[in-house]
């Protein structure tokens, strides 16, 4: 199969959906000629013109609010939020407006929009350009949240997001834009709420999101050398969450670590760990561990930043301890 980058995969998904459905349009800062600072959308304005690929001023709450209105009245906007950190600016439009319209209207109004943005530290971009804020939006009923872990997922999930009748937030990892993966030429969609088993194993389950899937896969490789067979599962969407697959895996392995790059406290890892605790308690031989980013603003200095994120080595160390039964009585 051909291999393309995550960036190309996103570009293809959007282009295909824009060709298929004339109500789809794209809007954001420097999305047209510049194709975004990460060059993910290059070429789209040439094909679809400035009526459908719209450069906006630096007015995030404004254009996200306009996307909500356009979505409520028959269009399918995709808004590009240049950095995930800017979610804070658009929270009212996204969480008070987009997320609640369908429910508040008793099912009469819909908001079929996509907000594509990014996450991820270790780019030396400091505290306001490095955050992973998926937990914030996953907390709000009415929003769906997708977290592609490779070019394959990025394309399939984007196409599903555009066709979904709800507001969907997609987080891409900034460091993965140039990563290649096999992506079929023919059309495919990845349904929301279907986890993917990346690697099978019987001793421990590593549940990981976005680029943390790579971290988990590397950890699994290292653990295999020590005779520990780790299963790696990627939920692909955290809302909706494929609980059944996660539980089935844990029933088999009896141990789990959940890895996500958001801050560890009150985060995605906590939610998944709690569900496993509630629904697979009988099958667990050890507490489910959370591994997120440290609970600190992301520091600029490389010497500090690298300490704040989960790494394969840190996952291996924790997995080893879990499998040795060391953490059962941990405080």
């Amino acid at each position, binding site marked *: 199969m051909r291999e393309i980058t995550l960036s190309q995969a996103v570009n293809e998904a959007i282009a295909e959906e824009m060709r298929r459905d004339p109500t789809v349009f794209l809007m954001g*800062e*420097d999305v047209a*000629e*510049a194709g975004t*600072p990460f060059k993910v959308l290059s070429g789209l304005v040439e094909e679809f013109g400035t009526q459908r690929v719209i*450069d*906006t*001023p*630096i*007015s995030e*709450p*404004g254009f996200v609010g306009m996307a909500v209105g356009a979505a409520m009245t028959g269009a399918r906007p995709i808004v590009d939020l240049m950095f995930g*950190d*800017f979610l804070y*600016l658009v929270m009212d439009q996204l969480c008070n407006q987009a997320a609640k319209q369908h429910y508040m209207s008793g099912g009469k109004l819909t908001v079929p929009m996509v907000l594509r943005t990014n996450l991820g530290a270790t*780019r*030396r*971009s*400091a*505290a*306001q*350009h490095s955050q992973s804020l998926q937990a914030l939006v996953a907390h709000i009923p009415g929003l769906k949240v997708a977290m592609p872990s490779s070019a394959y997922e990025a394309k399939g999930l984007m196409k599903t997001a555009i066709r979904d009748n709800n507001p969907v937030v997609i987080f891409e990892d900034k460091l993965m834009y140039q990563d290649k993966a096999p992506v079929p030429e023919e059309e495919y969609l990845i349904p929301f709420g279907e986890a993917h088993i990346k690697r099978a194993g019987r001793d421990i389950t590593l549940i990981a999101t976005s680029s943390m899937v790579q971290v988990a896969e590397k950890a699994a490789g290292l653990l295999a050398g020590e005779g520990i067979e780790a299963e790696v599962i990627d939920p692909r969407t955290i809302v909706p969450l494929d609980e059944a697959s996660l539980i089935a895996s844990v029933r088999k392995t009896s141990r789990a670590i959940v890895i996500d790059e958001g801050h560890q406290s009150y985060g995605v890892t906590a939610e998944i760990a709690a569900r496993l605790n509630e629904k697979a308690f009988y099958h667990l031989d050890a507490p489910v561990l959370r591994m997120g980013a*440290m*609970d*600190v*603003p992301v*520091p*600029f*200095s*490389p*010497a*500090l930043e690298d*300490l*704040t994120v989960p790494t394969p080595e840190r996952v291996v160390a924790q997995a080893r301890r879990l499998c040795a039964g060391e953490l059962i009585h941990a405080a």
Partner: protein
Amino acid sequence: MADARKDNDVKTNAEDYLRMYRQMVRIRTFEDNANQLYLSAKMPGLTHMYSGEEAVAVGICEALTDDDRITSTHRGHGHCVAKGAAFKEMFCELLGKEEGYCRGKGGSMHIADQSHGNLGANAIVGGSMGIATGSALRAKLLGSDDVTVCFFGDGATAQGLMYEVMNMAALWKLPVIYACENNGYSEYTRTDEIAAGSITARAEAFGIEAHQVDGQDVLAVNALTRRLVERARKGEGPFFMELMTYRYHGHHVGDINREYYRSKEEEKDWKENRDPIIRFRAWLVAEGIASEAEIEAMNAAITEDAAQAVAHAEAAPYPDASEVDMHVYAD
């Protein structure tokens, strides 16, 4: 050049003029070194160069005291130097070293220099407008006579926050000066494509006195600022300045091939015909304030200063790992 001699508000002694010149050259030299650090892969992350806009920061900050505050932007090195910061601590911060102004935690986009009243650069466009206006509110409430200058770019005028705080500043007559650095571009987009109507008229709509000034003329900028600062101290604020200027480099150091959004001829014209340092230097010589030889000696001393600071920063230690979770909360 503005006719400084005839303007009573302008500083009129040679020492002041020479300091203004020196500060502009220090900014240019700092940026040349920062760019070099990026190109030689010694600097983590990206940075936004202030080169070309020196007369704005220097003209304004030379009208302020250490008690007056400023808020800065992602393109903040110039403001920082102009407000009195030292090369050594700045380069250390750019390299993420412990001796940096923020102990390496902030980096280029978050340098703050408390000792000289610089409340910090900001990686959120428009993000400092509330902070600046709040600082002015504090001055009024606590009865101090300091003034706060809020630096921001033309692109930031698209942020709604600006209009909320200008309204309150005008209602409450706060001692704040909004300094819009209009360099013609917001990232990769021309200002006239993202800003409708006139920028100064927006401030005037709130009853705020607004001025447009040649941002490449340090004396004109200084004269205007001195007048406005004095009036702001007496409770006649707020004020708004639009400073017409130009950035010589790309949006950030990595923005090298930029002909798709602005021409080489345009860049050349600004650099050769309107450079604030060349213009001021010629004026200093013509007025007999400094000889060519004295100016060359000054330039050489600054170059040497910067080289020493860079060498120091390169050799300086990173913060200790134990600092990573320090400073999340104040004691």
